[in-house]
C-alpha cells in the first residue's frame, strides 16, 4: 500500500495516456467476434472495479452487485419498451434506480457489516431473481426482454468506443475516490473500523456512501450491457454472474486499482477459449479464485507487483 508518491507525474499521466491510445486501436484490427469479447470485457471491468470499490477498499463483501446491474438493465429496458424512452436517458434512469435501491439496502443492512451484509445481499439478490423470473408481463421472465440498442445502425466499433468512454469515466471516478480524502476514510474503515470510528470517522456513513456509489456504477454498467445485447434476461442479475465478477476481482487482485481491470480481461478472454466445457468454466474460475485467495491474496497484480514493484500497482 503505497501512498501518494512523487515518482514522477510524467509517468502517472504517461502510462494511462499510452493505454488510452492503445485502447483506441482494437476496432481497426480485431474481428467482430473479438471486438465483442473486448466489449464484454469492458463491461466486466466496470463491474469488477466498482465491486472492488466496496469489497477491496472498504471490506464489505456484497453479493448484490450483479443484482444492481440487473436493476439498472431492467429499469432502463422497461422504460424503453413501455414508454419509448431512448436508451441514453434510460441508462441514467437505471443508474438512478440502482443508486436509490443501493442506498435503501445499504441503509438497512450495512450496520450489520461483515458476514451479515454478505448474507443479506445474497438474499436480496435471490429475491430479485425470483421476482424477475416469475413475472412474465413486465420483465418477461426467462423469455427475456428485447430492448432497442443505442445506435440506429448496429456497429460493434461504436459500442466498443461507447463502452470504452464510460469505462474510463468510471475508472477515473474510482481512482479519484480512492485517492481522495474519502478514499482515505474508506481504507481507514477497512483496516481498523474501531480505530477509524474513534478518530471521528462516521464509519456507517462512509460504508453506505461507498455502497451507494458502487451500486449506481453497477446499474450503469448493467444498463449499457442490456442495450448492447438488446436482450435483458434474469442471467444479468444472477449469482453466476456475481461469482464471475467476484472471481475477476479476486484473481486480478482485490484492493488494487489495476487488479480487477486485468482480471476482467484475462478471465473473459480465457472463458472464450474454455467455453467448450460449458458451465464448468465458472467452477474452474471459482477454484482458481479460492486458491488465489489462499496463496496469493493480492491476486495476479500482487504476483506481478512483487516482481516489478512499480507504482502502477497500487
Amino acid at each position: 500500500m503505497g501512498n501518494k508518491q512523487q515518482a514522477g507525474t510524467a509517468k502517472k499521466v504517461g502510462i494511462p495516456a499510452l493505454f488510452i491510445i492503445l485502447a483506441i486501436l482494437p476496432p481497426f484490427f480485431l474481428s467482430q467476434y473479438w471486438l465483442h469479447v473486448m466489449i464484454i470485457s469492458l463491461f466486466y471491468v466496470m463491474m469488477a472495479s466498482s465491486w472492488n470499490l466496496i469489497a477491496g477498499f472498504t471490506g464489505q463483501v456484497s453479493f448484490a452487485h450483479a443484482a444492481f446491474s440487473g436493476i439498472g438493465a431492467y429499469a432502463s429496458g422497461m422504460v424503453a419498451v413501455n414508454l419509448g424512452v431512448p436508451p441514453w436517458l434510460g441508462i441514467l434512469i437505471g443508474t438512478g434506480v440502482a443508486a436509490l435501491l443501493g442506498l435503501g439496502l445499504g441503509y438497512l443492512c450495512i450496520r450489520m457489516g461483515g458476514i451479515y451484509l454478505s448474507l443479506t445481499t445474497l438474499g436480496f439478490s435471490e429475491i430479485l431473481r425470483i421476482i424477475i423470473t416469475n413475472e412474465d408481463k413486465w420483465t418477461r421472465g426467462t423469455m427475456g426482454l428485447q430492448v432497442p440498442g443505442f445506435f440506429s445502425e448496429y456497429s460493434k466499433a461504436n459500442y466498443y468506443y461507447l463502452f470504452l468512454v464510460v469505462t474510463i469515466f468510471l475508472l477515473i471516478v474510482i481512482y479519484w475516490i480512492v485517492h481522495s480524502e474519502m478514499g482515505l476514510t474508506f481504507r481507514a474503515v477497512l483496516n481498523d473500523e474501531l480505530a477509524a470510528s474513534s478518530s471521528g470517522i462516521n464509519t456507517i456513513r462512509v460504508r453506505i456512501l461507498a455502497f451507494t456509489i458502487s451500486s449506481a456504477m453497477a446499474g450503469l454498467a448493467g444498463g449499457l450491457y442490456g442495450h448492447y445485447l438488446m436482450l435483458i434476461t434474469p442471467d444479468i442479475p444472477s449469482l453466476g454472474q456475481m461469482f464471475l465478477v467476484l472471481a475477476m476481482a479476486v484473481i486480478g487482485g482485490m484492493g488494487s486499482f489495476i487488479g480487477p481491470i486485468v482480471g476482467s480481461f484475462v478471465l473473459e478472454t480465457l472463458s472464450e477459449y474454455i467455453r467448450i466445457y460449458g458451465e464448468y468454466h465458472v467452477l474452474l474460475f471459482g477454484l482458481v479464485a479460492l486458491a488465489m485467495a489462499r496463496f496469493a491474496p493480492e491476486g495476479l497484480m500482487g504476483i506481478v507487483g512483487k516482481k516489478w514493484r512499480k507504482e502502477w500497482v497500487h
Partner: protein
Amino acid sequence: MKRLMVLVTVMTVLAMGSWAWAADTIKIGVVGPRTGPAAATGKAFEEGIAIALDHLNAKGGVLGKQVEVVFEDTGGVPEKAASALEKLATRDKVPIVVGESHSSSALAEIEVANRYKIPLIICEAWHDDITKKNYKWVFRAGPVNSGVVDFYIAPFVKDNRFKKVAIVRENSDWGVGIAEKTETDLKNFGIPFITLKVERESKDFYTELTKIKGENPDIILAYIYGTGLHFFVAQAHEVGLSPKCLILDGAGPPSLWDTFWKNVGKAGELELFMSSMHEKVHLTPTSRKFWDDYKKKYGKDPTDYKTRSIYNVVLIAADAINRAKSTDNEPIVAALEKTNLEVTTGIVKFGLKQGTYEYHQWMPPMLVVQWQGQKQVVVYPKEAATGALKKVK
C-alpha cells in the same frame, strides 16, 4: 520498456485468436439446447445431423466440398442463444444457420440473424412471431403455433367431443403463444376451458393439479416442455386426475425421451402427444431412407421426431447452397425462396406472401399420438390414424 513489450506481445497473441484458416469444407451452423432442461433435444439434433451429413457427404457434399456442422449450445436460454448465433456469424463465419427448438431462444436469434444478414432456418420453435416478423433472412421448416392449434389440437378436442379443457402453460414464448391461440379457438367452438400458468422449470405441480381437479375437465392440454412434463404426468396420475382426464403433451418430444417411462411409470398409459413422426407413417421415400439410415447407424428405431426435423433443415440448407452455387447470403436466400425439395415430411416450399406468419414458413403435417400399452398409436387426424382414441369411462 520491457513491460510494454510484454503487453504488446500479449495483445498480439489475443488478436491472433481470430485465426481464420482456409477450409475446404462447407460449414453449416446449428443452434440448439445441448444443456439445460431440454438437453435431450440437443442429443436428438446430434443424431439427425450425423445422418444428414453421412447422406450429403456420401453424395459428394455441397459445391464439391464436404459438409461440416458447427453446433453451438444455447442451453435453452435466450441470451446464450443470441450469443451462440453471434459467434456462428462472426467467428465461424458460417454461410447459414439451422436448428433451434425453443421459441424464446429463436426470437432472440432472429434479431441477431437479421443484424448480421445471415440466413437462418428454424426447425422446431413454434411461436408465430418467428416468421410473422417477416425478416428476409429467417425461414422456418417446421410447426408454427397457429397451425398446430388450428389444424390439429383444437379440431382434435372438438371432433372427440371433449367437454371441458384445462390448459396448463409454461411461462415461455411458446407456452404463452400456443395457449392464447388455443383459448381463441376453443372460444370459437364454444368449449369451456380454464388456463393455469406454471414456471418453466417447475417440478412440483400439485397446487395446479388440485385446482384442475376441482374443475373436473376431461382433457388437459399440457404446454410444458422438458422433464417438467414427466413430473406433471406422474403427479396428475398420483392425484387421481388421469387417466380419467386425458393429458395431451402439446409439444411431443418429452413424451418420447428415453427417460419418459422411467419417470412416469404407469401414468404414461393413454397419454397423448403431438408428433410429426410415426413408424408406420411414411409420407415420402426420404422418410423411409431416414428411418433405415437411422436404424443402421444407431441400431434402434428413431424416437424423438426432432431428430428428423433437424435432418430436414440440414438437407434444405445444403440444397439451397447447391442451387445458389455460392455461400453468400443474398443468393442463398434467393435459392431458399425457390426451394422445392422432398424431405422426410413432404415437399418443402416456403410461403412468400408477406404480412403473416406464413411468410418464409413451411409446416409439415402433424399427428396426435396416444400411448396404448406402451405402443404409439396415431389417433388423429383420421386419414393418418392407426387406431382409435382410448378414453376411460
